[in-house]
C-alpha cells in the first residue's frame, strides 16, 4: 500500500545549491531575532525575494525559456529546506514560485507563460491564491464568486477570504464559477488570473491572533478582465485546483514550520547544561528525520512527473502534526523549570509558534479533509 513512497536521495548536483542559499541567509537572515525568523513563510520581505531571484534560486522547476532553471523539484527541495530551516522571510515569492508559476506553465497559454513566469522567476511578481470564500472553506466546490463572459472578456463579482498576502500581491489565481450554480458542484468552475490593481478590487487585511496581518478579504465589484485572464480551460477549474494543491501540499514547508523554535530551545537547553529532556529531544529528532525521508520520497514522485495527491496528504498530515506538537512539548519543558531563566527572544518565539500553530493544519487543506483523501486512497469507499 502506497509503495510509491520509498527512500530516495537528493542528487549531488542539487546539493550544490545549498552553499549559495547559505551565503544569502548569512547576509540577510541570520541576524534577525528568532521570533522574527519563526514567521518564515509568513515573513514578508519583497527585497529578499528579489535577491533570491537574482541569485537564480526562484523558478527552479520552470523552463529556461521563461527565465526558469529547469532544475526540478529536488533542487527546489534543497533551496526551500535551507530557507525554512533558517527562518528566512519567503512569503513574498512563496505562492508564485511554489504553485502559481507551475500552474501557469502547466495550464496557461504561451502568451501567459511569457508574460508572467519570467517576472516570477526574478522575484518581482507576487501572487496569491483565491480559493476560500465566506461560505466555502473545506467545501471548495461551493464557491460563489462568479465570472460572466462579455464581449471584452469577463466580469467578476464576489468575495474571497483568508487570502494570504493578497494585500501585497500583484495577481490572484482565483477559482470562480463560470457557469451553473453552486448546486452543480465541481462542474462549471474555472481559474482566472485577476489583476489586483484592476478597478473594482478591494482588499481588507485581517489581523490574526498574533497581531500580524498576513491574510485578507478580497472583494470583486464588477471587475472587468480581458479574455486571456482564463487559465487553462473553462469548466476545468476543479481538476486544475486538485493538481495545484499537490504542489502546495508536498513540499518541505510542511515539516519545518516550528524548526526555528526547536533550534532555539535546544540551544537554551545546551546553555543550561541540562540533559533531563534528552529523550524528548531524541524522539523529536527521529520524527524530523523520518519526515524528511517521507518528504523527499514525495518530492521524488513530483520528479517522476506524478501528481502525488494522496502521498502529499500523508506527508502533510503527519508533518503538520509534528509542527504542532513542538511548541506544546517545548512549552511544557521550559515551564517545567519555572526557576530557570528564559530569554525574551525564546519566550516570544515560543508564544508566537504556540499561538499560530493551529493554522499549520488549516492552510492548504485541513487535517480532516486530508485524512478523507488518504482514506479514499486506501480504498475505503
Amino acid at each position, binding site marked *: *500500500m502506497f509503495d510509491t513512497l520509498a527512500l530516495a536521495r537528493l542528487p549531488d548536483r542539487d546539493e550544490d545549491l545549498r552553499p549559495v542559499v547559505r551565503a544569502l541567509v548569512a547576509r540577510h537572515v541570520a541576524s534577525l531575532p528568532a521570533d522574527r525568523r519563526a514567521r518564515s513563510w509568513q515573513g514578508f520581505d519583497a527585497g529578499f525575494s528579489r535577491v533570491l531571484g537574482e541569485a537564480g534560486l526562484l523558478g527552479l522547476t520552470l523552463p529556461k525559456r521563461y527565465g526558469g532553471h529547469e532544475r526540478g523539484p529536488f533542487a527546489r527541495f534543497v533551496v526551500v529546506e535551507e530557507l525554512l530551516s533558517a527562518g528566512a522571510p519567503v512569503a513574498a515569492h512563496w505562492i508564485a514560485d511554489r504553485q502559481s508559476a507551475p500552474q501557469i506553465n502547466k495550464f496557461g497559454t504561451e502568451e501567459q507563460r511569457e508574460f508572467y513566469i519570467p517576472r516570477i522567476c526574478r522575484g518581482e511578481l507576487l501572487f496569491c491564491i483565491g480559493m476560500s470564500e465566506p461560505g466555502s472553506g473545506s467545501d471548495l466546490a461551493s464557491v460563489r464568486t462568479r465570472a460572466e463572459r462579455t464581449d471584452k472578456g469577463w466580469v467578476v463579482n464576489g468575495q474571497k477570504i483568508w487570502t494570504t498576502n493578497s494585500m501585497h500581491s500583484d495577481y490572484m489565481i482565483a477559482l470562480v464559477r463560470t457557469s451553473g450554480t453552486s448546486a452543480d458542484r465541481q462542474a462549471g468552475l474555472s481559474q482566472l488570473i485577476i489583476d489586483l490593481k484592476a478597478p473594482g478590487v478591494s482588499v481588507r487585511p485581517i489581523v490574526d491572533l498574533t497581531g500580524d496581518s498576513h491574510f485578507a478579504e478580497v472583494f470583486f465589484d464588477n471587475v472587468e478582465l480581458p479574455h486571456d485572464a482564463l487559465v487553462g480551460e473553462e469548466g476545468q477549474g476543479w481538476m486544475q485546483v486538485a493538481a495545484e494543491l499537490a504542489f502546495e501540499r508536498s513540499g518541505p514547508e510542511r515539516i519545518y514550520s516550528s524548526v526555528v523554535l526547536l533550534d532555539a530551545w535546544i540551544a537554551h537547553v*545546551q546553555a543550561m547544561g541540562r540533559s533531563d529532556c534528552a529523550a524528548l529531544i531524541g524522539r523529536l529528532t527521529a520524527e524530523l528525520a523520518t519526515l524528511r525521508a517521507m518528504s523527499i520520497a514525495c518530492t521524488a514522485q513530483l520528479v517522476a512527473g506524478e501528481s502525488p495527491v494522496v502521498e502529499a496528504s500523508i506527508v502533510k498530515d503527519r508533518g503538520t502534526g509534528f509542527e504542532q506538537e513542538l511548541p506544546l512539548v517545548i512549552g511544557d519543558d521550559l515551564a517545567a523549570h519555572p526557576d530557570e531563566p528564559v530569554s525574551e527572544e525564546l519566550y516570544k518565539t515560543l508564544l508566537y509558534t504556540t499561538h499560530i500553530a493551529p493554522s499549520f493544519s488549516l492552510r492548504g487543506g485541513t487535517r480532516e479533509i486530508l485524512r478523507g483523501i488518504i482514506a479514499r486512497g486506501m480504498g475505503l469507499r
Partner: protein
Amino acid sequence: MTDLLDPFARMLDAALPAAVVRTLESGGDAAPIWQTLVESGFLDALVDEDQGGVGLTLAEVMPLIMALGARAVPLPVAETMVARALLASAGVAAPEGPIAIATSTAWPVSGGLLADHVLIDDGASLYLCSAETVRPVATGARHDTAARLTGPVEGTVVARPEEGLRPVMAVLRAGLIAGAAERVTEMSAEYANSRVQFGKPIGKQQAMQQMLSVMAEDMVACRLAAQLGASDGLRVSPVAAATAKITTSAAAARLANSAHAVHGAIGISEEYDLQLLTRRLHEWRMVDGSEGWWSQALGTARLGSPSGTVDWVRAELFA
C-alpha cells in the same frame, strides 16, 4: 528488487502459512521448515560473495525482512542472515540451524525457543553460544517464542563491531515492524470495507476513516524509517538505528491498538490472524531497545552538537 522478493515471499507463503506459524508458537518442529530456508540460499543473502554468499546489502535485504514481518514469522530468519554475515567476515564457520541474536542477557531473546544457537552481545564481546550451553527457557507468556537464557554465556568468541549489535538489530526490528505494519493496515482497510453495521460498511464512517488514515501514515513512516536505518550497510550507526527504532517502535504500539479497534472482538480471538501480527508488533517494539531507550541515546548525541537540527540530521543520516 522484486526479482528477489517474489521468490522469497512465495517460499514463505508456502512454508510458513499462518497455521504453521501457530504450530511453531505451540512448540511444533521447526526443522523441516528450516531445511527449506537453508536450501533456498536466502540465509546467506548478506554474506559476501567471496565468502560464498549472495553479497546483498542490508538495504537490498530490507524488503525480505519486511516480508518476514508481514507474515509474523517467529523463526529468527533475519537474525540468522545477519549472524551468518558476521560469522563469515569473522572467519567463524556458521552452524546450519537458526541463530537468535541477543543484545541483552536480561531481556528475553526473540525467537530464542526456536534457535539452535544464540549470538550474544554482552556489551564487551560477542559469543556464539549453543542452545545447550545458554539453556533458553520459555518466558511463561502464552505463545511467546522468546526465551530467557539460563546458562552461562560461553562459546566461540567472534569479533565485535565497535558499536556492538544493538544498532543493526534495531534496524532489523524496524524492518520487521514495517512489514507487519503494512499487513495490519491492509487487513484493517479490508475489514472496514467488508464489515457492515448500521446498514453500511464501517469504513464509510468518518471516525473510522480518520483512524485508518493515521494507520497509513504510521505504516509509511515505518517503511521510510527502516529504509533510512538500512541505507548504510551492516555497520549501522547508532543515530540511524535510533531513528529507525524510535519511529517504528512508537508506531508499532499505535498500529496494534488501531488495528484491534477497527476489527472489534474478532481481532482479539485466537483463531483470527490479526493477533499473530499485533503480538509480534509489541515484541519487536520492546526488544533491542524500545523507543524510550533509543530516544535517550539519540537525544544525548544531538545535545552534544552545536549544529541546527536540520543540519545535524542531514549530516548524520542523509550524507
